[in-house]
């Protein structure tokens, strides 16, 4: 009866949410397959968390539907939510209980989770040593892992993670990515939201990009991110001569200082007073470099950096701007 026709485990159809007179989510559509890591990309305040809350039944959509493994979250929550594990926003657990007691708490809420399973997920997220300590004493990274343990407890088919790398240190972020990939390769569909383009590029197979509560694009990461022109930082002397030279190319856009401010932090650290920030097609870089060297410009460095989400948006909406 409710047999889905293919391997889609999460289907979102024409999802809308209005609060009062204000529509905050406009017609969101996407599907997530088994074994896929699906990115949900948008700046803060774009409606990511509201959408996620609708996915797990915390908010009732004004119209549209969310189906998990063929079950409608609104109409059959007891069936649909069985197949989802989620962390919405921060992994908030009961601080006055131990990690183990927290997992027991959520295990008691549904059938088929025994202590053996709790031990399994505890091992999986490497919390073995401290599981019997109060959550109050946990670091943010440990809480995040306990949150994931909780989400995995009921052997879900879909895992929903809201900004899973938020607040983690670089090592923690790497571990988290590896962990998510591992889960996906075991057949789990993982839905990850983020406001960082690089995060999505590094992790996801497909992505939905949203801004201002609207879906701007859905597609494979390579397709969509490739569409965004990469940024190149030229570290050259004399700067004026290089600027004139770059200006001759029609397909190279020189980004002013305001535009450069939108760079991600790692890229901003590369900037100095000699830097010129441009949008340059990848295949042009070698040619331009050659011309510069011949013209006697001292090239101290050329860096390609990923476009930021803001620039991607700008390109996508072609100057309409983000609401």
């Amino acid at each position, binding site marked *: 009866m409710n047999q889905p026709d293919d391997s889609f485990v999460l289907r979102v159809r024409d999802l809308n949410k209005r609060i009062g007179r204000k529509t905050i989510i406009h017609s969101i559509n996407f599907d997530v397959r088994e074994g896929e890591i699906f990115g949900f990309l948008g700046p803060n305040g774009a409606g990511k968390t509201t959408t996620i809350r609708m996915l797990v039944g915390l908010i*009732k959509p004004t119209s549209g539907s969310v189906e998990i493994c063929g079950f409608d979250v609104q109409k059959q*929550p007891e069936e649909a939510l069985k197949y989802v594990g989620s962390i919405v*926003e921060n992994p*908030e657990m009961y*601080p006055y209980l131990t990690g183990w007691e927290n997992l027991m*708490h959520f295990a008691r*809420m549904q059938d088929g989770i025994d202590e053996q399973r709790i031990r399994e997920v505890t091992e999986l997220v490497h919390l073995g040593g401290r599981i019997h300590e109060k959550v109050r004493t946990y670091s943010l990274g440990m809480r995040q892992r306990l949150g994931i343990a909780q989400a995995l407890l009921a052997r879900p088919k879909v895992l929903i993670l809201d900004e899973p790398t938020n607040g983690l240190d670089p090592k923690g972020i790497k571990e988290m990515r590896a962990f998510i990939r591992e889960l996906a390769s075991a057949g789990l569909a993982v839905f990850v939201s983020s406001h960082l383009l690089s995060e999505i590029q590094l992790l996801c197979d497909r992505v939905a990009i949203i801004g201002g509560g609207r879906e701007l694009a859905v597609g494979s990461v390579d397709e969509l991110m490739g569409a965004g022109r990469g940024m190149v930082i030229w570290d050259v002397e004399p700067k004026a001569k290089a600027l004139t030279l770059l200006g001759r190319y029609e397909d190279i856009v020189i980004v002013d200082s305001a535009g450069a401010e939108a760079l991600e932090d790692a890229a901003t650290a590369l900037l100095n007073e000699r830097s010129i920030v441009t949008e340059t097609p990848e295949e042009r870089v070698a040619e331009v470099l050659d011309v510069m060297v011949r013209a006697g410009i001292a090239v101290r460095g050329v860096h390609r950096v990923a476009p930021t989400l803001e620039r991607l948006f700008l390109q996508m909406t072609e100057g309409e701007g983000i609401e």
Partner: protein
Amino acid sequence: MKRFWAMVQNEVVKIIKKKRFYIVLLILAVMVPIFSYAQMRQSLERQESYGTDWRLEVQQAIIDNQNSLSSDRVPQEWKVYRQIYIQQMQYYLDHDVNPNEPGGVTFTREFIDNSAALFIPLMILTIASDLVSSERTGGTIKMLLARPVRRWKVLLSKLTALLMFVSLIIVSAYAVCYLISGVFFGYSGWSIPIFTGFVLNGSDVDLTYVQATPQWQYLLMQAGLVWFVGVVVALLAFMVSVLVRSTAASIVVMMAALISGSILTNMASAWSSAKYLFMVNLGLTEYLAGNPAPIDGMTLGFSLAVLAAWGAVSVFISFIVFTKRDVLT
């Protein structure tokens, strides 16, 4: 069904681990000795002025009250109270029963009588007021409601755990009270007769239905009434905790209601529609003792009905709001 009791167990674990119930026990363990000591000092003083004969003391009380009836400075409604008191005391005297027979059981009866409308409800608030609001403040409500369990079941498991703790608090109040006051007054007094069934007609007391009840039986009836008051207060606090996000706000709202109740009880006799407010109806044990109701037209049955109505409406609102509302923060 097994699932449901497992969820009730969850709620019980959370209440205990939050150490709320220990606070209740601690408050009792601190307050009861203080009151016991005060009571002991009082009875020692009485013994000094009246000797060991309790009749002298009761007679003196009757005379004092009669004298004040002729004074112009005493308000009319107080005079009514005093006339009733005189007739009841006279009845005890006529039947040769000491109304103030000291003992652990008598102390317990009086302590519970005095704490039924405010003290015990306050202890219930420590548990009821943050039952739902704390899940919202802590953000754990997202985890709780994203599980494959209908929302009404989640709320019902909380309500069930709450009612269990209301019962436990009342049993503990009796137990702590009896055990501690017994140290001061001895543990006897279970079978002392207590008169109930005074019917009040204005300032007259109708004695036809008065009967002697052994004190243990009186305590049982009292416990039933106190439990009923406790449940209604718990249901109201539960509703407030569903409606209000902050636990502090939730406690303050309920405390304000309860305290305004005890103030209104003392001054609302002229405003008769105040009798439909839940907070002036909390003194159910007063009916049992034969004390006059704060407002004309209030009877035990009336108060029970008013409280039941308030309780039922709170449960209804709690469930509607909890199951329909979006979890936005």
